[in-house]
C-alpha cells in the first residue's frame, strides 16, 4: 500500500489557513479595521485556487 498523502496533508493545512483567515476577517470587521478585513478576505479567496492546484497536482499520484 504505497500511497502519497502529501495532497491530503497540504489540503488539510490549506483548510486550516481558511479557518484562521475567516476568523481574522470576522474579528477585524468587528474592530472596524477594514484594510485588515480586505487583506484576509483576499488571502482566503486565494486559498481556493491554491487548494485546486494542489488537488490537480496530487490526484493522480499513487
Amino acid at each position: 500500500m504505497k500511497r502519497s498523502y502529501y495532497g491530503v496533508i497540504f489540503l488539510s493545512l490549506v483548510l486550516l489557513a481558511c479557518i484562521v483567515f475567516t476568523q481574522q476577517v470576522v474579528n477585524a470587521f468587528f474592530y472596524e479595521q477594514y484594510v485588515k478585513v480586505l487583506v484576509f478576505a483576499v488571502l482566503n479567496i486565494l486559498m481556493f485556487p491554491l487548494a485546486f492546484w494542489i488537488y490537480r497536482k496530487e490526484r493522480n499520484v499513487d
Partner: protein
Amino acid sequence: MIEDNKDQKNRKPAVPYDEDNYTHNIRKDNERKLDRRSFMKMMVGAAGVFAVSTLPWGAIAAKHLAAGDKRTYPKNKITALSDIPVGEAVEFAYPGEHDSALLVRLEEGTFKAYQNACTHLKCPVFWSKEEGELVCPCHHGLFDVHTGKPVAGPPKRPLPEIELAVERGTVYATGVKRYEA
C-alpha cells in the same frame, strides 16, 4: 460487473495477489466512496465555501473604506439632567432603536455611556450602584464603568463607548467611539 464477480468467484485466487493496493476484497457499492481523491475533492470544496463566505465581509469592508470611513451619527436626546441623580443610570437606545445603551452619572458633571450588550453573549449589562461596576447578570461579567473594559468574568472585549454632550440641562448622545481594542 456481475460477470466480473462470477469470474472472480470461480477463479482460484492467486497468492500473492497480482495487485499491490489490496482492493480485491472490496465489492460493496460505495465502499471506496471516501477514498483519498474524494477526500481531497471535499477539501477543495470546503476551501471554496470559505472563500465565498468571506466575500460579503470583504464587500462591506470595501464599501466602508470607499465611503471614507466616516460614519455619521444622529444627535439624540437621552435624558434631562434633573431626571438622573448622581450615581444612577438610565437606559436608552443608540444609534438604532434596538442598540440598547446605558448612561451612568458618576459625578455631578461626569457621564459615561456604553452600548450595554455584554461582549460575551449579548446579555444586557446593568449598572450596579453598590458595586460601582457594570454587571452582566448572565455569567457575572464585570466592566469598569470608567473605561468600559472587562474586569471579571467571561467577557474579554470592552463595551463600545458612546460620545456624549451636555447642553442646557440635557444629555445628548452624539456618536459611538471607534471600537479599538
